[in-house]
């Protein structure tokens, strides 16, 4: 599913016998830090956020692996993180580019490790107890960033949002023709059920997007083909590329691939989208020159294999 840019799973947990984050004192927070450090020793490295380079921070933020909290544990491949004291005591996040729900199994391993060593706050009635009731139950949330530019072009995005909401999910604007599909409060469902329903919903959404692309093409084949070819040419030759333009180009390339008009390496598309994701989640935005330069590097890397 080339339209899915990244898939992310988060587990939220609170340590038993401690107040939640809004009422947690500093000394109790240190106790929780010590427990988590002991549980993750040898599995994940504690990171001092100040020691990360700007590029590393941008990348981690774009993947949603680092948030507002200042306590961070990362695996060596930087695909999993454990954040402390964000919304809840512990937030375990796993993220992969593209559509890849194996992130659930991988994040689950970390969650199981922590759960075996630290007692978590839990009630039979409500599952894992949370400060934020939206995470009640299994305390797990699934998210995917997905391109729905064809649906948006047809003016159907609000209707799709409403339908998605009725089915127990959220579809929110991410910007640049991108949207986040996420699970809502899922108390009463098992983790497996949530994962299955999320995968189905995501597949359905992508199917609707591809159908919309075909309808767009049927109605305006020449115009669509022209836009796609122009986008390829601009990508290959631009020396200044504003982020908005890059987003339109990427949407057109996706459209071209989905319609079978062009062939683009999926990895190259993912790397182009990573520029958009990094720009979106960071305060210091890329300049058009920086974006053009990054694009050149990506295309060069693609040619070299």
């Amino acid at each position, binding site marked *: 599913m080339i339209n899915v840019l990244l898939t992310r799973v988060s587990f939220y947990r*609170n340590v*038993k016998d*401690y*107040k*939640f*984050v*809004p*009422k947690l004192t500093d000394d109790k927070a240190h106790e929780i830090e010590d427990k988590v450090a002991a549980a993750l020793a040898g599995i994940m490295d504690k990171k001092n956020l100040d020691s990360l380079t700007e590029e590393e921070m941008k990348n981690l933020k774009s993947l949603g692996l680092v948030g507002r909290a200042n306590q961070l544990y990362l695996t060596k491949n930087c695909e999993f993180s454990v954040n402390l004291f964000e919304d809840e005591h512990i937030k375990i996040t796993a993220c992969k580019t593209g559509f890849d729900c194996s992130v659930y199994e991988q994040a689950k391993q970390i969650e199981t490790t922590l*759960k*075996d060593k*630290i*007692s*978590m*706050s*839990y*009630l*039979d*009635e*409500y*599952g*894992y*107890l*949370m*400060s*934020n*009731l*939206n995470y*009640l*139950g*299994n305390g797990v949330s699934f998210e995917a960033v997905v391109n729905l530019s064809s649906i948006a072009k047809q003016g159907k995005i609000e209707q799709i949002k409403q339908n998605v909401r009725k089915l*127990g999910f959220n579809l929110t604007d991410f910007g640049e023709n991108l949207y986040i599909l996420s699970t*809502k*409060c*899922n*108390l*009463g*469902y*098992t*983790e*497996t*059920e949530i994962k299955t329903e999320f995968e189905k919903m995501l597949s359905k959404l992508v199917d609707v997007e591809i159908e919309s692309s075909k309808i767009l093409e049927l109605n305006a084949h020449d115009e669509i083909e022209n836009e796609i070819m122009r986008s390829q040419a601009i990508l290959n030759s631009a020396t200044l590329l504003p982020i908005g333009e890059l987003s339109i180009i990427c949407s057109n390339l996706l459209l071209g691939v989905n319609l079978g008009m062009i062939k683009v390496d999926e990895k190259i598309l993912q790397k182009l989208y990573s520029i958009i994701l990094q720009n979106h989640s960071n305060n210091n935005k890329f300049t058009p020159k920086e974006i053009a330069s990054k694009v050149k590097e990506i295309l060069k890397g693609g040619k070299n294999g």
Partner: protein
Amino acid sequence: MQCDRCGKPSVYHSTLIVNGVSQSRNLCRDCAIKEGVFNTETSLFDDMFSAFADFLPFEKVEDVTCPVCKTSLVEFKNSGKLGCPNCYEAFREEIADIVKRIAPFSTHKLEASSTPKTKTAKSSKEEQIATLKAELQLAVKEERYEDASKLKKKIQSLEASK
């Protein structure tokens, strides 16, 4: 528009519709005062208010506070965040109402292979009783006798259902 009584320019306009029949009145300031429209002791609004008082559901909101973390119900409603696990007991009814609105079901469903560290309902109940007993001691010590009485009743009902 002119005053219905004296013909001066009117400042007060009212329309009363009874059984589909509309009656309009236009009064200047002096005639309006004479008719008691601008009564200084009660305003028109007060009269409307008292007339409808029987039909409006007024809830007296009691501000409950969690005895452990001191989060009040008002604080919870404003911030949307609970302060500690005991808040689930302190705000039991309110949380149940919220859960009904936001969640597909009102109780947790366990994965067949997934068990939390605190696994059985029995051990969970015993822990609840132990927590409540600790809170009861604290409430008595701080002379919060009303809270203590409520905690005692909860402990008794949990012990009865063990």
